[in-house]
């Protein structure tokens, strides 16, 4: 560990650290690698949906209404004669956009609130945290539904709402991390030599919370994707003609599913595969960057990795 940090002092540290993590991912975490492949695949499908989809997302084939899966329509068609395969492909784009941007916003908000609370501390922290407490007592999905009804459905509204909601909830974790950093000697030293607040925040605190930020980002993406699809499913998300995976399972489609069960199958399957992949990838990233964040309380916390456990008696270093 010490050896690596000394290596990281030179300029190309970000790059070497990145490839280091990537190599360890493939070597140590087979499930994480599978997750990474799924994540990259979904990202690819989402970005190039326009080229990959054989038909338009709202293109209707009026003579092919509710056709079972066939060579022409691999996943069948829905009650309006739209190709489900193409819609599932376009759905990946929505999930990717919402998952990444909303989580990005939420991480920015968590970091801002968390760093402010952690750094300023005192009464400010106390008051803000009471509000965060109260906010976290309101069940997320119901709160999201209420806010969507306020601002109206739509992709950007959903992204911003999910971002704010996740951001407030996640600020607790960032705050704890900043509090931990404040205890360190190097921060005391920076304060003692009279560094400005800006320097302390950008040069001392930010670099040290970068790993947790990446971890929180990768761990929150699947939850955000699920929240979006859940909202769209209830009719409070991305409005109907857009092929959101959650939305494809709801509304009018539900009455036709009994005649065309394939309509119920594919969007949910795509969603499950994506959430599975991103989840696995996020877990692996967390284990590689900072296994302490795995959870657990006090001395119950997991400190020894599973594989190390077997040979811990021989090489306990």
């Amino acid at each position, binding site marked *: 560990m010490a050896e690596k940090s000394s290596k990281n002092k030179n300029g190309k540290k970000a790059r070497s650290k990145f490839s280091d993590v990537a190599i360890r991912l493939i070597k140590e975490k087979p499930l994480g690698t599978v997750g990474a492949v799924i994540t990259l695949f979904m990202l690819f499908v989402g970005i190039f949906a326009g080229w990959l989809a054989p038909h338009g997302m709202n293109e209707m084939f009026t003579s092919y209404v509710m056709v079972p899966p066939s060579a022409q329509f691999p996943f069948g068609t829905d009650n309006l004669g739209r190709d489900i395969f193409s819609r599932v492909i376009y759905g990946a784009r929505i999930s990717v956009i919402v998952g990444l941007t909303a989580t990005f916003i939420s991480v920015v908000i968590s970091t801002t609130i968390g760093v402010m609370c952690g750094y300023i501390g005192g009464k400010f922290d106390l008051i803000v945290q*009471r509000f965060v407490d109260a906010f976290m007592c309101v069940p997320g*999905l119901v709160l999201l539904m209420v806010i969507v*009804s306020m601002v109206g459905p739509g992709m950007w509204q959903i992204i911003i709402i999910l971002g704010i909601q996740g951001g407030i909830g996640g600020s607790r974790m960032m705050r704890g991390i900043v509090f931990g950093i404040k205890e360190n000697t190097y921060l005391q030293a920076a304060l003692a030599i009279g560094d400005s607040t800006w320097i302390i925040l950008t040069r001392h605190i930010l670099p040290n919370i970068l790993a947790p930020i990446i971890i929180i980002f990768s761990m929150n993406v699947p939850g955000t994707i699920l929240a979006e699809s859940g909202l769209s499913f209830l009719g409070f998300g991305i409005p109907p003609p857009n092929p959101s995976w*959650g939305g494809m399972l709801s509304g009018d489609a539900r009455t036709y599913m009994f005649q065309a*069960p394939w309509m*119920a199958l594919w969007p949910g399957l795509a969603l499950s595969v994506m959430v599975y992949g991103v989840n696995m990838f996020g877990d692996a990233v967390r284990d590689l960057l900072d296994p302490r964040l795995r959870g*657990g309380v006090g001395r119950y916390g997991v400190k020894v990795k599973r594989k190390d456990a077997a040979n811990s008696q021989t090489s306990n270093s």
Partner: protein
Amino acid sequence: MRAYIIRRILLMIPTVFLVSLIIFVLIRMIPGNVVDMMVSEFGTYGNVTQVDRKAIEHALGWDVPIYIQYGRWLNGIVHGDFGKSLWKQVPIIEDLKVRWPVTLELGILAIIIGQLIALPIGVYSALRHDTGGDYIARSFAILLIAVPSFWIATLAIVYPSIWWGYMPPLTLIQFTQDPIGNLKMFWEPALILGMGMSGMTMRMTRTMMLEVLRQDYIRTAWSKGLRERTVVIRHALKNALIPIVTIIGGQMGALIGGTVIIESIFNLPGMGRLTINAISTRDYTVVSACLLIFSVSLVVFNLLTDLTYGFIDPRIHYN
């Protein structure tokens, strides 16, 4: 212990107060308010003048400053009066009395089923650590986390009806009238909700059991010649339970969201469907009441989780 409980309950008061403030302000921030909706609704029958608008606002009690409105609302709730539904003009409390038990039953059944799935598989997975069975169990746990409950529920409604012509009952059967019919109605939604909860618990159970099974006192228990069941349940699981309970407690918010989704799929007339209907018709008094009740139940759940630690681990003292 009693002093601790009393102090915790007193500490709940400011939290609940803040929650109520957040809910009230949030709902008042909604732009297209219900008065506009009512005006346009009544407007189709004739001309609505400024006077009618004032009358509607007065009838809703919205013609006074917002802090007085908040005071009235809070005062009513303290006295068990959640106000009236804006559209139906019936006291909300009557609706809540019917719907709350449905959601509560669904939630409790889901928690029980979730643990019945999670704990045995999690323990098995830890005991057979790194074997085929462990890998299958772990993949199962990940699957439970990844698969959204509304998809499983949709499949569970669509496919049985196509294959066997089975439909879950559509009207609510009261537990007091027909317990078996009631359980027949609730087992499927509760199972799906419970499955959604169990993935996380299963993983935590496995991790904690692995941790505890390495401890010296477990080795002692084995070498005393105790039965496997005693070692695993009495010595290991009991000591692994605290983080597991933390995880279960942390899932309550998601569980409430889950009941909203599952109720709307299985046509259960619970709080979730009440909330969805109220939001779509902009019935804000009902929305605030539902949000408040959901939030207070979360606060109570958190308290119960904290109190459970003391029962699990007698070393924890509350003072």
